[in-house]
């Protein structure tokens, strides 16, 4: 159905190599998320798979068929764009029916599929409206509707939620995950938001400057980041990274400890410091602790009921079994 394999794929714009040789397999029915900081090549990679950009070298296979030189329309993929890219002069019905119309399906079949998609996406009441009359979340659903009516081999999402407000984003995240469970179709999802990546993905692909830093399930990445970049990128707030003598004690160049794996106390502990800003989220409180002699700031997660004030002296105790060790080359030491 939708197994996508990239082998030795590269992409250069002029002299600039955006994607160095890269191998990646996305299994049928998998929800793969490409995540990385902006400019890391994740959107370019998606556009290569979609066929909107030509690869400079290498091969793309969809379902075992070489698709490297196949035009985008023939690859059987559907894409949801960041700006939704709805056709503003067409009604929602016509927008959703557009790919079917281009495929010259008969009118009755078009109507049947559009109505079905509209039902799935709660758009039935809006079919005669134009995109300009819809809210951001509804437009997003229309864009998804336009993708699902084609019954594609795989869906490609290019930062689809970045134009929505925070509450809607959480809602749409669930809807897309739900859709994936129901359709069981391969989905490739590009985002820079690691929360989206962690919550939605079966497989996360962390990219930096076109390189794949690590591929794995969300928890694999969280528990065993392969290098310092992944360690710093996955997890919110970020993992604390500590160099120097403290790391030497653990036979490492750098050690990392997540905020949730440090206990904070006003009386005793392994490290001492002074509380700086504290962020109260209600359920949790994040303390930024300074003057520990280890790093500029150590972030610590504590229960929401712990009350410490700016300037208080505190003691920190890391959970020793949760310390990640990294060598001088930035790679994880097992």
């Amino acid at each position, binding site marked *: 159905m939708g197994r996508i394999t990239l082998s030795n794929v590269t992409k250069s714009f002029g002299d600039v190599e955006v994607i160095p040789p890269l191998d990646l397999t996305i299994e049928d029915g998998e929800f793969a998320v490409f995540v990385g900081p902006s400019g890391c090549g994740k959107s370019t990679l998606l556009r290569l798979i*979609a066929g*909107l950009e030509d690869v400079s070298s290498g091969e793309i296979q969809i379902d075992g068929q070489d698709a490297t030189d196949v*035009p*985008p*329309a023939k690859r059987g*993929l*559907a*894409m949801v*764009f*960041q*700006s939704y*890219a*709805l*056709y*503003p*002069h*067409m009604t929602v019905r016509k927008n959703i029916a*557009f*790919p079917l119309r*281009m*495929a010259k399906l008969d009118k009755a079949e078009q109507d049947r599929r559009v109505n079905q998609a509209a039902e799935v996406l709660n758009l039935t009441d809006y079919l005669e409206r134009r995109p*300009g009359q819809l809210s951001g979340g509804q437009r997003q659903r229309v864009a998804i509707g*336009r993708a699902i009516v*084609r019954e594609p081999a795989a869906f490609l999402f290019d930062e689809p939620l970045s134009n929505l407000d925070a509450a809607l984003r959480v809602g749409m995240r669930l809807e897309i995950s739900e859709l994936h469970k129901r359709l069981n179709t391969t989905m490739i999802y590009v985002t820079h938001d690691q929360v989206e990546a962690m919550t939605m993905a079966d497989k996360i692909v962390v990219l930096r400057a076109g390189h794949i830093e690590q591929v794995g399930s969300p928890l694999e990445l969280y528990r065993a980041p392969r290098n310092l970049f992944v360690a710093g990128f996955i997890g919110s707030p970020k993992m604390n990274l500590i160099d120097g003598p403290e790391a030497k004690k653990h036979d490492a160049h750098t050690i990392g400890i997540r905020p949730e794996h440090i206990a904070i106390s006003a009386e005793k502990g392994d490290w001492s410091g002074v509380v700086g800003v504290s962020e109260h989220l209600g359920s949790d409180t994040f303390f930024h602790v300074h003057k520990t002699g280890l790093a500029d700031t150590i972030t610590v997660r504590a229960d929401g009921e712990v009350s410490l004030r700016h300037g208080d002296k505190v003691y920190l105790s890391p959970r020793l079994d949760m310390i990640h060790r990294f060598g001088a080359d930035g790679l994880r030491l097992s």
Partner: protein
Amino acid sequence: MATKASRSAARLMMAPAVVLLLGWMLVPLTMTLWFSFRNYLPLRGGDQGFAGFDNYVRFVTSSAFWPAVLATLFIVVGVLIITVVLGVLLALLLDQPMWGQGIVRILVIAPFFVMPTVSGLVWKNMFLDSVNGLFAHIWRFFGAQPVEWMIHQPFASIILIVSWQWLPFATLILLTAIQSLDSEQLEAAEMDGAPALKRFWFIIIPHLSRAITVVLLIQTIFLLSIFAEIFVTTAGAFGSKTLTYLIFQRVLESQNVGLGSAGGVYAIILANIVAIFLMRIVGKNLDA
């Protein structure tokens, strides 16, 4: 403009412009209306009192009236079709990234800066002349008999010249409109299976509809009153007399200001009829 004081200050400051504009338009309009009811023959006795609706009746019943109206519409419609169709194609072409883009764009716009009289004369003498014009040479090169453009194809000649002048305007406006098209829409259509021609028809043309409306409206206003191109080429002969040209002939060649003014009022009515039609047909594109 929130407070009363700032509102009245704004009115005061706008007043000179409004008064000037009103004067600019109202004085000639009133004078035209006034003269159209007078029997005014400057070289044959001057102003000879009220004529009632005589001028209006005479102007319409003249054998030259309906041909002039048709000629006007024919030229306007012809130029509109040519400039919009070629304008869209040229805009698409100029939107492609290419070497020397800036210079090419300036060259494309250049005809718009040539005065109508000059371009009319250049076309008549350098291109359309049946003995020494460029076209005549081309015709002869292929062994054909050169066309007497001014005599046998007066409409084609005038439409050609005016289209050449107005094409840059249409191209410029349509080019800016094309540049504002979200490229993701085209990519989405490509993913949806629309080949280039269908993308053009279903995405680009609807996106351009508003700009095309603007081009049509603005050009119509100016094209209804073209004069210089006719004056220097056919001088209204061979059936190429437009309403504007007819009015000119009535006032200056027949020295009948009253009759010409009545024609002017008809021209205003014609312009408004055309404008209403255009608004009806394409005006809905201007709604947001």
